[in-house]
């Protein structure tokens, strides 16, 4: 009986009229009701205005920093790999740490451009271009370390399975070889994605260009884009296809990087949790780096209406989520070491936390597990300076995570007679320090010469760009 009454009540139009639906205020993704033209101006003037003084200062500083890598690598090539601090028993030191660190940073770019695209997260549009650029430059920095650790760099092409006069192939059973495929595929797809997304904006810059060299420069890069419907149709299709293609890459690349460790038998490396744990860590560090870069840019170019508090909130929450996963993984490693009752593994983990590298372990825990938990609080997410500081902590923490994994396990493994302590040499330090300069040089050039944000996609999410404007509700 009662069911029948409910049905008739639902169908009662008089009752429906009384219902007052709750309107959930959703913050706009582009604030302050700007026109579509404003978006074009905002993005294009970054490239078109005369070079600001801060840019030159940063660029020269970045070049000076990058020269450290140049000096370090030149010395390495002319002298030999022995100039790095690698020695028995720690044959994997800073080189692999830096490689994994930079590769991890690159993961935010693909996550934002691929997975968030497929999940229709519209807030990604403001940051995806810069994040993709960051990915590419980070992978370039990462690539330097495996490239130069071979010593004779001119033989680095031996990493690829090319037929050769020696009658040999690379070892296909080695995860290091899988790395070559994973990272090179990742780099190629990221470049394609980045460049293809830029074509309409490059055409826009071409059409606005006043100087001849700019007309030719952007004209060549725009590849004849005319903004016709057919062009847009193809563009959207290609974008979705590339998004689908790079989605597995977000997971595969760092999974394979984790295999470098997990496939070995060294206690502390030989664990099945590594792939998901590494992927979470990579996204964690990637988003921290995106915020580290985007917050200063937002302040300098006054992009507060495009990169809103909602964007920062979203990224902070991703950092909080992945940071908690990383913390869970740290705890689970200890649990399994105890639960698995393998004396070598238990020793390794106790040694990590309380042994000779305890200082590195606790820096890692503080930066990676404790500091992102502050993002539970709205007041902290709204304090831009504090967000930047926490992201810096995460960047540092994620470098130490790789250091702890690579070095502590090797320093004290099965044979106490061959235990050791690893210290980097000045060449290691120079090379790594300089990669931040190398990265900054590339990023500054990107900011100055290429469109920082996808103009058309931002227009699509502005209130002015909504096809069915309704003053009462926000359609986003």
């Amino acid at each position: 009986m009662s069911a029948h009454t409910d049905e008739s009540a639902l169908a009662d139009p008089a009752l429906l009229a009384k219902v007052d639906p709750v309107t959930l205020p959703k913050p706009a993704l582009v604030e302050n009701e700007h026109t579509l033209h404003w978006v074009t101006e905002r993005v294009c003037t970054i490239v078109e205005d005369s070079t600001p003084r801060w840019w030159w200062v940063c660029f020269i500083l970045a070049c000076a920093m990058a020269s450290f890598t140049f000096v370090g690598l030149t010395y390495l090539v002319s002298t030999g790999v022995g100039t790095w601090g690698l020695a028995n028993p720690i044959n994997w030191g800073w080189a692999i740490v830096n490689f994994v660190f930079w590769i991890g940073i690159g993961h935010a770019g693909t996550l934002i451009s691929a997975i968030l695209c497929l999940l229709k997260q519209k807030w990604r549009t403001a940051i995806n271009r810069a994040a993709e650029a960051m990915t590419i430059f980070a992978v370039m920095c990462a690539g330097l370390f495996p490239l130069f650790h071979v010593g004779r760099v001119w033989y680095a092409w031996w990493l690829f399975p090319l037929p050769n006069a020696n009658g040999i192939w690379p070892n296909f059973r080695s995860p290091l070889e899988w790395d070559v495929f994973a990272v090179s595929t990742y780099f190629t797809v990221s470049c394609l994605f980045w460049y293809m997304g830029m074509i309409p904006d490059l055409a826009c810059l071409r059409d606005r260009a006043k100087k001849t060299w700019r007309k030719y420069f952007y004209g060549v890069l725009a590849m004849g884009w005319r903004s016709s419907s057919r062009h847009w149709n193809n563009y959207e299709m290609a974008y979705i296809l590339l998004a689908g293609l790079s989605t597995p890459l977000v997971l595969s690349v760092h999974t394979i990087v984790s295999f470098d460790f997990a496939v070995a038998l060294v206690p502390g490396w030989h664990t099945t949790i590594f792939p998901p744990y590494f992927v979470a860590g990579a996204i964690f560090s990637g988003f921290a780096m995106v915020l580290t870069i985007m917050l200063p840019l937002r302040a300098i170019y006054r992009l507060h209406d495009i990169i809103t508090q909602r964007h920062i909130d979203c990224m902070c929450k991703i950092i909080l989520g992945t940071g908690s996963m990383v913390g869970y993984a740290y705890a689970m490693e200890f649990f399994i070491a105890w639960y698995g009752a393998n004396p070598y593994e238990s020793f390794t983990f106790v040694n990590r936390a309380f042994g000779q590298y305890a200082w590195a372990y606790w820096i890692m825990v503080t930066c990676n597990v404790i500091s992102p938990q502050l993002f539970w609080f709205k007041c902290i997410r709204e304090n831009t300076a504090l967000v930047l500081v926490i992201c810096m902590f995460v960047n540092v923490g994620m470098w130490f995570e790789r250091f702890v994994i690579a070095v502590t396990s090797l320093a004290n493994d099965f044979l106490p007679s061959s235990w050791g302590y690893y210290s980097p040499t000045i060449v290691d330090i120079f090379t790594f320090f300089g990669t931040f300069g190398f990265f900054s040089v590339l990023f500054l050039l990107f900011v100055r010469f290429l469109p920082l944000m996808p103009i058309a996609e931002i227009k699509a999410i502005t209130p002015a760009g909504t096809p069915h404007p309704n003053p009462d509700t926000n359609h986003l």
Partner: protein
Amino acid sequence: MANIFPKWSNFVPIKIILGIGLVVTAVVAGITYYGTPKYMRVGYQPIQPVPFDHNIHVEQLGMDCRYCHTYVDRSEHSNVPSTNTCMNCHSQVLTDSQALAPVRESAESGEPIPWVRIHKTPDFVYFNHSVHVNRGISCVECHGQVNEMQTVYHAKSLSMSFCLDCHRHPEKSIRPVDEVYNLNWEASSPKEQEEMGKRFVHDWKINPPLSCSGCHR
């Protein structure tokens, strides 16, 4: 903006891609042919200070390789003989020959004859002559028909894949141990070589190293 790109520029990217493809193919083909040991080493035939003729000594006079290369079956290095070895015979034979004047001078002064080296394994390769000749790998497999050479030349490529071909399929090159220094020996048929080779590989427990450290120690 006026159109600054003429119509022909539509085909420039395709032409560039095709051009790069052609250049890469040419470079790869060129290096494959001209840049590998098959071309760079094979046929190297330097003029020696003394025109020593292996053909006369081995084929006409029937000398064994080990009369001069004394340590080939006992050492990793196959030695080039000292002048004393030459003088064992040439103190009696052809004592007035003009061609042998450097040999007599060397014997008197004690200064070795400056033979020009032809076959050389790189510093980073460990090669042991004695293990090969004592396990049925003849001189001819790496050095060619030296018994027929009037002037010695580099006959085989001696590239890494040359070594590996044999290490991967030793049964194709192995022969009875007492025929190692008989450079004209051949199995009666390829089938016979295959069967006999497999038997030797099994019986003598031939297990040629294929790991890096087998040769790059």
